[in-house]
């Protein structure tokens, strides 16, 4: 096991720079998730750690060693690919043993390590099958087995669950997390799915357009997003944003939206900012139905069983609210939505930074 250091790493393809100086430090044994929309550079960054892409500038280290010039096989890493990349002409056990065979490891040791990994992943009955005889989830497990067998310093996962159906994805999420708790190997995991990031990570790195937007523990990103991008990306359904300007700084501060609705700011209002334009952010789950909140009219009601999701029109802005209690709401009905002023966020309307 080892820590991973990424210092001012940049990557250009021809004249186009797609990663603009990224700094991340990953502790020994940590489960770090790089998350962001497609094209944000997260997979490229992972491939640079693996050594599949050259580093244009900056430095990547694994443990004590700077690995910029080191070929992948010397980096002591293992990688799980999105499409699994299993060797189709080899059985499950041959797939898992391949890296050890290349190192001319003794037969007995190879068998033993393959069996240990297969035991952990429940692959024992499948060892003689070929990849095409396996289901998606089983292939995914073989890909992980191939990584475990090598007992590497760092595991790299590149969107490993994207090809699985929704139910299996949830199940594999738990399995991967369990595996990490058991092996405690430093893990870097790339995904575009913020739920995967929230549920599995010790630390999340949110990336966007080749830069790091914020690094932090899942709940820290949820509670204190550094900017509007992170606020909108983390959490589902996404945070509601309403632009307007700040009023009543000296009394009870609020934000007046373009639709003329006053939303309470609580203690969030920055000093001396009366009339300043800003973006108000409130998570769907931080609304309560009350008699005195902002007036809104129900547009769509979406019950999921465990909760009820309401899309409402609030002075021209569409807002989403989620309630755990069951309310009998009809489209067109007038309701009053009261945001919890302690849990709202305020962002600069130009830079998107948190105020």
């Amino acid at each position, binding site marked *: 096991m080892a820590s991973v250091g990424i210092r001012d790493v940049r990557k250009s393809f021809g004249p186009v720079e797609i990663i603009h100086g990224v700094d991340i430090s990953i502790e020994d044994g940590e489960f770090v998730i790089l998350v962001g929309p497609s094209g944000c550079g997260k997979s490229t960054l992972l491939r640079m750690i*693996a*050594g*599949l892409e050259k580093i244009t500038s900056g430095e990547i280290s694994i443990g004590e060693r700077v690995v910029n010039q080191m*070929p*992948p*096989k010397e980096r002591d*890493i*293992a*990688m799980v*690919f999105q*499409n*699994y*990349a*299993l*060797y*189709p*002409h080899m059985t499950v056990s041959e797939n898992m043993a*391949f*890296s050890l065979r*290349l*190192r001319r490891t003794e037969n007995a040791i190879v068998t033993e390590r393959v069996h240990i990994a297969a035991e952990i992943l429940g692959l024992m009955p499948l060892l003689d099958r*070929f*990849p*095409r*005889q396996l289901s998606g989830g089983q292939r995914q497990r073989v890909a992980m087995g*191939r990584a475990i067998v*090598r007992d590497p310093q760092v595991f790299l996962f590149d969107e490993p669950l994207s*090809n699985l159906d929704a139910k299996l994805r949830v199940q594999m999420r738990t399995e991967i997390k369990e595996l990490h708790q058991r092996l405690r190997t430093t893990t870097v995991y790339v995904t575009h799915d913020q739920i995967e990031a929230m549920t599995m990570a010790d630390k999340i790195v949110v990336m966007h357009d080749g830069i790091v937007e914020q690094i932090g523990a899942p709940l820290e990103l949820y509670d204190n997003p550094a900017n509007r991008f992170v606020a909108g990306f983390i959490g589902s359904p996404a945070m509601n944003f309403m632009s307007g300007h700040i009023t009543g700084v000296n009394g009870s501060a609020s934000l007046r939206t373009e639709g003329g609705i006053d939303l309470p700011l609580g203690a969030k209002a920055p000093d001396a900012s009366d009339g300043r334009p800003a973006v108000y952010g409130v998570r769907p789950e931080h609304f309560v139905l009350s008699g005195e909140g902002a007036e809104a009219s129900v547009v769509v009601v979406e019950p999921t069983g465990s909760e009820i999701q309401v899309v409402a029109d609030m002075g021209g802005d569409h807002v989403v609210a989620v309630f755990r209690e069951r309310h009998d709401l009809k489209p067109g009905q007038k309701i009053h939505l009261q945001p919890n002023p302690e849990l709202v966020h305020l962002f600069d309307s130009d830079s998107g930074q948190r105020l």
Partner: protein
Amino acid sequence: MIDAAANENAVAPVSFWTRLNENRTVLGLWFMLPAAAFLLLFLAYPLGLGIWLSLTDARIGRAGEFIGIENFTWLWGDAVFWLSVFNTLLYTIVASVIKFAIGLYLALLLNNNIAFKAFIRAIVLLPFIVPTVLSAIAFWWIFDSQFSIISWALIELGIIEQNIDFLGTPNNARASVIFANIWRGVPFVAITLLAGLQTVPQSLYEAATIDGASKWAMFRHITYPLLTPIIAVVMTFSVLFTFTDFQLIYAMTRGGPVNATHLMATLSYQRAILGGNLGEGAAISTAMIPFLLSAIMFSWFGLQRRKWQQGESDD
């Protein structure tokens, strides 16, 4: 619409002919008919006729009578026939092995990211698109006993003192026609294998890189096994084409010198058309069938196993 049809049914029962034509199996047979007729007329009939001729004493201008396997027993004792069998096997085996080696090498080379890739790929195909007789005539000149450019160049370089008699001595002639065949056959092998190489997912190579495979190990453990189905197809075709080659030999040496380059196809032509012994020529051609069948069976069984191993969907 439905009502109208129902009424019609009620009034007049559908005729046997109409029902027959609406039967899916019968309809299928109808659709197959053009292709079947074509195959029967241009493939099965000539093949059958050839085999029939080999059992007769037909000559040009005279329909033969059935003589059983007399043609074959005669060929069994014919040294020239056995020489042509030897030549054909030598020609096929040597040319196919070398075509495979060079073709695979070229395919691997062209699969890399090199400059002017499309252009070079087009160039590689050139020998394949030139008409065989044209390239045979070019080789005839290249290997000419007096005007050979190879002899000239070697003499100018001071390596040899007098012209090489490429097509005049048995072993030189064999080597020369094999060389020409290789030159002509490599593009087919190379381009087909290249197509096969491009179906191997890049992620397998990335996984192997991380697993610690060297370039050679990747070829040995990934490229080659995944390419075997295509190799089997390509080499079957290559062997079939080489074994039945006629044009190149006939344009370059006509089987000479002293029958040293006679293949079964050229010998058959010589005896049947030039010599007029249709029956005997047909027997030589028929004698090729077992060889060709065994080549086909070999690749057939080779392919069966791979199919089971590999499958079409791997992600």
